[in-house]
């Protein structure tokens, strides 16, 4: 019974490209996010490598100043929005329904839509290299981004692709909030949620509250550029500081969005490989919530040198120092988890331990920035990239890498090569420190950020060279990583459902999981329910992988759909139409794209959630 004027059947494509274009299976979508994020990470890494080569010695001319500006802008934007966030999304997608005992997310089609829109935004941003990419820094301060100072389309691509990416992130976050609140297996109370799911939940809430602010900031900038509005037009009384405020009101919660999922991963890996429950589960959850709340109160620490005045600076100094406390609590809880445990150093465990060490160093430099007086010296020097790479690379990326290795058997059904994994770890650890630790030194010695070269005799030569050498160690590690992943996925040994003797529900099902995830939705009796089941504490039969398959007949799964892809396509076209709004007929492309988007939305809303005539897909 279709409510559409013409009956469009649901897609039925068991394999191939159309299967991937119409899939709404959270596991497939997770893989799509992961692979795309990977490729984007490589592109961001290339951008970084080019910069480091340029800076390896004084007064090199490998890239021009103009290109260098584009490199650091694109590197930052890529790593944050196209690598770390989608890598997190890959895990949210794949792992969370498994951890809460669900068959999919609350809105499977919205989930697919989020991915395709993310891809659209990613393509738009990366393709902007053609013709000149954005070059005003990843935070795009006004008036550098004004139409007078930056008439090229690079900024416009940056603005519009960020808006598109924002839509993807928002859609995904709404989905995960409803999923985590509303699709937990019976008995899984909020305080029995695995830590990764908890941190993701907090992240998603942060996201839906923070992104609208940058949406508004970008809209204001767009209107200034395209229509001559005065938001950041100083000659008409506008304030460029307003941009900074709006950006960082978003930007600071954004960095917690970047780190909290990683902290969730670490909070799961450590207990598994210490064979001990997480020390102080409730405290760690509360600390995460406190970080998220306090994250709204610190944003002007990015603006200490703008001239806000001593009162504002003092207030934000205090709040920023205070926010170190809940993070510190987490670190102590992680240590408490390992302490006295039966520790097994596997690759995921190594990365999680490395995360603690690296994040700690990044946190210490962070507290140094927190004091506005000392930040006056550090701001806009290399001391800041030192800090941010310790928390984002040594922190978020390491934690996410830990997650990749941890869940690799689950999503691929294969075991990776442990020796290669540990080699990757050591190369990354050494490379990370060789690359980023010297940045503390040159920063303290006054080397500014975002300069494309420097003269000799400043005392910066040695450490810049060392930093660049570190990059190649990191690249070596990354190559080992890719080889390991590809080889193992293709021909690694088969992985059992529970290779690590895990604690949470995803380990209670086969690797890779069947399409329906759980043959029977589990009933949860405690925190770390799967672990307790294995210990015999829950008086439950341990489900056997495989089985008769009889129960499958009563499992109805959400069905694939064309419309998420169509709607995303419309948005993609509209986005290009906004940037190229004078092409052919003014605004024609944007209108066409919007129309396609509307068609997609209408068809999507009129398509029943599940076609009642259809039997289960098995």
């Amino acid at each position, binding site marked *: 019974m279709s409510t559409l004027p013409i009956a469009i059947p649901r897609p039925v494509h068991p394999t191939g490209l159309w299967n991937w274009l119409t899939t709404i299976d959270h596991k497939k979508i997770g893989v799509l996010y992961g692979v795309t994020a990977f490729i984007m990470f490589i592109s961001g890494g290339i951008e970084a490598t080019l910069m480091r080569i340029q800076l390896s010695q004084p007064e090199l001319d490998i890239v021009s100043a103009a290109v260098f500006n584009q490199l650091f802008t694109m590197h930052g934007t890529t790593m944050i929005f196209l690598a770390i966030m989608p890598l997190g999304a890959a895990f949210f997608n794949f792992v969370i329904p498994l951890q809460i005992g669900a068959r999919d997310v609350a809105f499977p089609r919205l989930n697919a839509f989020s991915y395709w829109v993310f891809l659209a935004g990613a393509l738009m941003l990366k393709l902007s290299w053609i013709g000149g990419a954005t070059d005003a820094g990843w935070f795009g301060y006004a008036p550098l981004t004004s139409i007078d100072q930056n008439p090229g389309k690079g900024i416009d691509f940056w603005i519009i692709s960020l808006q598109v990416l924002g839509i993807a992130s928002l859609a995904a976050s709404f989905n995960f909030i409803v999923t985590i609140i509303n699709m937990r297996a019976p008995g899984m109370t909020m305080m029995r949620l695995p830590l990764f799911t908890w941190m993701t939940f907090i992240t998603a*809430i942060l996201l*839906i*509250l923070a992104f609208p*602010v940058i949406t508004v900031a970008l809209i204001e900038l767009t209107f200034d550029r395209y229509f001559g509005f005065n938001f950041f037009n100083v000659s008409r009384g506008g*304030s460029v500081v307003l941009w900074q*405020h709006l950006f960082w*009101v978003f930007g600071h919660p954004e960095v917690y969005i970047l780190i909290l999922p990683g902290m969730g991963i670490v909070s799961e890996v450590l207990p598994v490989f210490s064979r001990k429950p997480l020390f102080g589960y409730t405290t760690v959850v509360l600390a995460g919530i406190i970080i998220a709340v306090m994250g*709204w109160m610190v944003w002007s620490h990015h603006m200490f040198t703008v001239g*806000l005045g001593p009162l*504002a600076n003092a207030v934000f100094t205090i709040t920023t120092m205070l926010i170190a406390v809940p993070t510190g609590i987490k670190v102590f809880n992680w240590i408490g988890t390992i302490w006295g445990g039966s520790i097994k150093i596997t690759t995921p465990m190594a990365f999680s331990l490395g995360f603690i060490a690296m994040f700690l160093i990044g946190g210490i430099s962070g507290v140094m920035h927190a004091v506005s007086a000392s930040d006056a010296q550090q701001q806009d020097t290399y001391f800041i990239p030192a800090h941010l790479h310790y928390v984002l690379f040594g922190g978020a990326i390491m934690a996410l890498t830990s997650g990749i290795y941890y869940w690799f058997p689950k999503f691929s059904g294969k075991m990776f090569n442990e020796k290669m994994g540990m080699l990757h770890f050591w190369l990354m650890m050494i490379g990370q420190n060789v690359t980023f630790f010297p940045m503390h030194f040159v920063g303290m010695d006054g080397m500014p950020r975002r300069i494309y070269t420097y003269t000799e005799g400043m005392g910066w030569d040695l450490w810049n060279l060392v930093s660049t050498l570190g990059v190649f160690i990191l690249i070596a590690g990354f190559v080992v990583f890719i080889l390991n992943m590809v080889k193992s996925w293709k021909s690694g040994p088969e992985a059992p459902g529970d290779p690590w003797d895990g604690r949470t529900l995803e380990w209670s099902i086969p690797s890779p999981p069947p399409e329906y995830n759980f043959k029977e939705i589990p009933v949860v009796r405690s925190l770390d329910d799967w672990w307790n089941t294995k210990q015999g504490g829950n008086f439950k039969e341990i489900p056997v992988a495989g089985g008769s398959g009889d129960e499958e007949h009563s499992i109805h799964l959400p069905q694939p759909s064309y419309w998420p892809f169509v709607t995303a396509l419309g948005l993609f076209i509209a986005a290009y139409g906004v940037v190229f709004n004078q092409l052919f007929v003014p605004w024609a492309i944007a209108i066409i794209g919007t129309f396609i988007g509307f068609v997609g939305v209408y068809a999507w809303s009129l398509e029943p959630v599940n076609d009642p005539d259809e039997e289960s897909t098995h």
Partner: protein
Amino acid sequence: MSQEINPSEAHTGHPTAGMYFKIAMILSVVTAIEVGIFYLTWLSYWIIPILFVLSAGKFTLVAMYYMHLKFDHKLFSLLFVGGFVLATSVIFALIFLFQVWL
């Protein structure tokens, strides 16, 4: 959950059409008062808290009754009020940072 039967709410806990109409009348009257007060220039800066309270009252009535928050699960209120409180806080913080005295 209160056991008493509020005559303005049917057995299902939904306000009746009569109640909705009454609320609409209250909203209209409050709006009229707001506009009326607006012409009393002698009130000077007192107009700010007065209008604030009146508008907050209208907002609350629409949210609690028309949007049904009074009768629904508290989670919905949390989701909405959370965003609202944060938005208000950001507004006030920016006002102070830009030294716009209300």
